[in-house]
């Protein structure tokens, strides 16, 4: 059972206040039947890898405030770990997961091929940014998070303005990066770089002698520690959160496009509390959830709620890997990375 912390309550209160100020009203109609069904189920097991601990904690707190009577149990581990867990549960006929949220669309393609997802159409679907409104024509999975991959840098340096400039030679020995073999976000970034610039990009990148860690957040750590000054495949939201905390770090939206990797969510067909799972997933598109996201520097999932700093998707250049052939593209990108970079 997730407990409400004072901090979460404050943030939810602030979110509601901001929402009211913006003239956004919670959509109450239409979900009462689902709420009743979810309440009858009594609890909900979230298996989430999208969003860091603080943000998901606050989302749960806001959900519990909006829908009392449903206990929320959170298993927050890395995306691939929660997915492997669900697959083990499926293999052993012991599915506990009611809502899966990971950063890899391939998980959902596989679950779909196994007929292991439960379809639903979010009541607030029309509020989702149009580009991500219909990820799956059968409604088996939906957007759960918008993750932007950009360049981050120590506040004391200018840093590169584009991916091309980053590998141009001016930042040799200064770059930190995660590994596509360990992180879904970094893998998506590698696929995107190969698609946009070809293999030469990886060769030029390797020539800059980057420090390779595991996760995309490792670049933030290296910059804050002073070990490197520039982060490639850097997490937009997390970097801004660290900046807001007072750390000397900032982000640069690359002029040759930020890379967008969607967090996806779905409900397992054998979920023990499917209605509660759906209620939570639909709650992600509510104004309350959007405000929690904005407060934590995450892009909101509603087109009518601007991000922190007043940004929105239309104002930035972004690129997303096409879903077709992504499995092969990811495997190939990891192989090339191992051959060329590390």
């Amino acid at each position: 059972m997730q407990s409400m912390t004072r901090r979460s309550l404050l943030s939810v209160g602030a979110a509601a206040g901001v929402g009211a100020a913006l003239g956004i009203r919670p959509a109450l109609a239409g979900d009462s039947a689902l709420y009743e069904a979810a309440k009858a189920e009594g609890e909900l097991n979230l298996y989430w890898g999208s969003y860091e601990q603080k943000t998901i904690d606050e989302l749960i707190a806001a959900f519990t405030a909006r829908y009392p009577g449903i206990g929320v149990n959170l298993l927050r581990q890395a995306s691939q770990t929660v997915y492997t867990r669900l697959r083990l549960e499926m293999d052993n006929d012991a599915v506990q997961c009611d809502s899966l949220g990971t950063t890899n669309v391939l998980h959902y393609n596989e679950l779909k091929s196994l007929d292991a997802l439960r379809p639903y159409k979010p009541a607030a679907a029309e509020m989702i940014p149009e580009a991500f409104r219909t990820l799956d024509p059968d409604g088996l999975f939906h957007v759960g998070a918008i993750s932007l991959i950009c360049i981050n840098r120590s506040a004391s340096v200018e840093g590169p303005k584009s991916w091309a400039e980053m590998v141009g030679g001016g930042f040799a020995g200064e770059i930190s990066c995660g590994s596509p073999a360990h992180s879904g976000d970094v893998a998506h970034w590698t696929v995107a770089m190969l698609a946009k610039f070809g293999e030469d990009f990886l060769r030029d990148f390797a020539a800059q002698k980057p420090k390779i860690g595991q996760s995309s957040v490792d670049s933030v750590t290296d910059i804050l520690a002073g070990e490197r000054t520039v982060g490639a495949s850097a997490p937009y939201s997390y970097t801004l959160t660290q900046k807001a905390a007072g750390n000397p770090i900032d982000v640069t939206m690359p002029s040759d496009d930020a890379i967008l990797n969607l967090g996806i969510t779905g409900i397992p067909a054998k979920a023990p509390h499917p209605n509660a799972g759906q209620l939570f997933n639909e709650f992600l598109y509510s104004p309350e959830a959007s405000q929690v996201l904005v407060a934590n520097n995450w892009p909101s999932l509603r087109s009518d709620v601007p991000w922190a700093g007043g940004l929105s998707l239309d104002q930035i250049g972004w690129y997303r890997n096409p879903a077709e052939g992504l499995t092969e593209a990811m495997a190939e990108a990891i192989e090339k990375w191992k051959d060329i970079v590390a």
Partner: protein
Amino acid sequence: MTSQPRPALSGIIGHNLPRWLVLTLVTLALLLLVAHPLGWILWNSFHDDSTKELTLGNYQRMFTRPSLWIPIVNSLLLAFSVALFSTLIGVPLAWLVARTDMPGRGFIRAMTMTAFVTPSFIGALGWILLAAPRAGWLNVGWRNLTGAEGQLLDIYTMTGTIFVCAIYTVPYTFALVASAFDEMAVELEDAATTLGAGKWRTMLSITVPLASPAFLVGFILSFIQGMTLFGVPAFLLTPSGTRVVTTQLAEFYQLFPPEIFLAAAYCMPLLIVTAGLFWIRRRILGRRQFTTIGGKTRRTRRIALGARARWLGFAFAMIVPVTAVILPFAALLLVSLSKAWGMGPVSGNFTLDWYRWALLENGETQRAIVNSLLYAGIAASVCMLLGVVVAYISERRLFSGAAILGALATTPIIIPGIVLSVGFFSAYTRPPFGFYGSAVLVIAAFVATFLPIAYSQGTTTIKGISPDLERAARSVGAGEIRTFLSITAPLMRTGLVSGWLLVFIPIMRELSVAIFLVSPKTNVMTTLIYNYKDGGNYEAVAATSVVLLAGTLVIVLLARLLVGQGSRRTRKTPTTDSAA
């Protein structure tokens, strides 16, 4: 070694029902805890990850692809170096603390236990802050001091990894060997002295050989630690692109689609390596006697080192406290007390918020603290009970298949936690067990993982107790179980408490075995801390690490108070220099 005469099979059950009841229970427990999950791992290893069909393909891939066997070679190198260094440091350290008049012995003992309590991946985080080539505080200090341009230390190397693994593995060797030295009687040393041996010769020809079972177990456990540690190589070797077995396994699980069955096959060579180590141990120790606890009054005597050697010894003994506790925890403490750690130790950046958050505000951390302490306490107790009984059966050869029980109890430790986690998942999720999501499953996995330590410690302790004492009890009519309970067990008390700590502490530090078994309600501290690290929240990582350390230390201190600072039966005599 002395063996009991084996009674004829006929009539045994009628004459000694309790004995057979214990044997049956122990065998059943080992089958459930070890054979069943390991059987699943073995079964899985012969299946294809995508088609789920029976195959030898996983093994074929493993031996034909250099990218898969190179990590095994790297791991062997890492493990051997870790075992070597932790023996070279741990054994003299134990001797200095247990048998000499070196100053600050209590402090060194306490600090070495503190190092033991620290999960090594947390130590690695501390050392990244200290010795990252460019920004590590020690390197910055070095450059400021000398005006040099390069770095003094680079933690992101194999040497750095061996160093960090070794300093957190020394306490294993230390605890085992110090316990053996604590227990040792001085009659044999006195005999050597009477015959004219000097104190150093006595030490080399009597004291050290008598403690050699503990050295060997220490070496083997350190080797296994070096093979199975995940966090340290994951943090320190990734930048150089060097893979070891555990990081390669993590890759199998992190890639899509995950290669769980290949990972199972990947562990099998490790089983052979461990079996080899324990076989060598048996060959070396099997026929020799190491009885240190007889029926006579015992006392230990400390060797007077002399003024200069005392302080030299102290300087050597400070290696572990300084490198494994003081430096990394100073770094972590600084981070945990920062509002934003990237700002560094400047005014206005100090806060206790992260501790308030960890202890008072965050329900998840509070629950994980309770879970960790509770599960580790229960698991360590069950583990010791089972390990000691198996050791007793096996050492006293109470029945002809006793060695098999010993082998079973030894097996799980080499299986890296993440694979064992899947073995337990497969074994206990389906009916009739259905333990998935419950604390029972997490505790059972902890018991199985650390049973080899309990068994080894039990064996070492039993090897030190003369069977004459048991024979005396038997000769006045006591049965085997009564003899064990009233003679053997009380004599083992110190060994049992050390053993309990040797199991309790690694459970508190264990990272991987719980990974697929914990549920939101049964989460433990290490998985939580690792998740915070995964999310990049270093202040939270540092604060919860300090809390974990403090919680474990409290339990360790309580346990030591319970037995009155180790060997309470031993009447220590004042320091003498009689042998000189």
